[in-house]
């Protein structure tokens, strides 16, 4: 590496540059005397409205967004769609506690079993016969 960089070594590491005499001493003084004033943020007295303004704007924005959701997502025609029914059911279920949840599904199961019996002919557990069978 040394022999490879021989030319570079010949040139040496001496600093070939110089500065006017006393430059560095004068530089600090000069710079400090011309240092611009920084605009230090003075604790401005803000009125109540000025302080509340951003919050008010934000609140207004949220109200706006909420209204938008109401307008675009909740038209009365849509309420009867299957999706909404399912949504409502889910919401109702969420509100019930666990016991109600089981009761609800037991009832549902009973109704389903009854329907199956009506249309397919399987007897309901605990019941001997179903009226429709008798007629057939």
């Amino acid at each position, binding site marked *: 590496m040394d022999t490879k960089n021989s030319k570079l070594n*010949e040139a040496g590491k001496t600093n*070939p540059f*110089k500065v006017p005499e006393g430059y*560095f001493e004068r*530089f600090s003084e000069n710079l400090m005397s011309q240092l611009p004033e920084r605009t230090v943020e003075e604790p401005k007295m803000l009125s109540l409205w000025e302080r509340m303004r951003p919050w008010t704007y934000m609140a207004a924005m949220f109200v706006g967004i909420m209204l938008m959701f109401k307008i675009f997502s909740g038209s009365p025609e849509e309420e009867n769609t299957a999706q909404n029914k399912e949504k409502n059911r889910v919401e109702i279920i969420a509100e019930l506690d666990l016991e109600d949840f089981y009761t609800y599904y037991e009832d549902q199961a009973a109704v389903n079993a009854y329907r199956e019996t009506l249309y397919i002919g399987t007897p309901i557990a605990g019941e001997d016969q179903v009226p429709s069978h008798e007629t057939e």
Partner: protein
Amino acid sequence: MELYNEDDILKMLRSSDELLQKKAFGKVVSYYSEKLYWQIRKMVLTHDDANDILQNTFIKAWMNIELFRGEARLSTWLYKIAINECITFLNRQKMNVQVSIDDTDALLINKLESDEYFDGDEAQLKLQQAILTLPEKQRIVFNLRYYDEMPYDEMSEILGTSIGALKASYHHAAKKIEEFLTSHD
């Protein structure tokens, strides 16, 4: 010379008293101006340009002192500003001259030759010429390493480049300079 304690200085710089801030900044200027000057000078070559850039560097640092959070060393932060200022200056110079890169380098060498504050002999002038043929980043790396012998980890912080890449960059730079010096012998 007054003792320079960076921790105390940083505390003073963060105080809300502007007079105290200014006093602390004055100490920073006295302590770092020479180191930064030489780095800038090797990039822009002439004293007048280096002087302007050094002033801009400190004024920028003063105006943005709140942004210095003390995660890096103050010297690293100042070097970063100085190097950015140099690059901006050189780019602006290129734009103003509206010539090819070779001509800009020639312009810099002419400026250097006529600069009354250049004291180098022929070999040193040739070395400066060789350094000028390097791309900007390699020039910075070469100057920091060759003249200032700055450790690679510090350089890596200043330039935001990995140590491996810096070593490679220095190696390439030294090789190119060697080739230039041999061919222009």
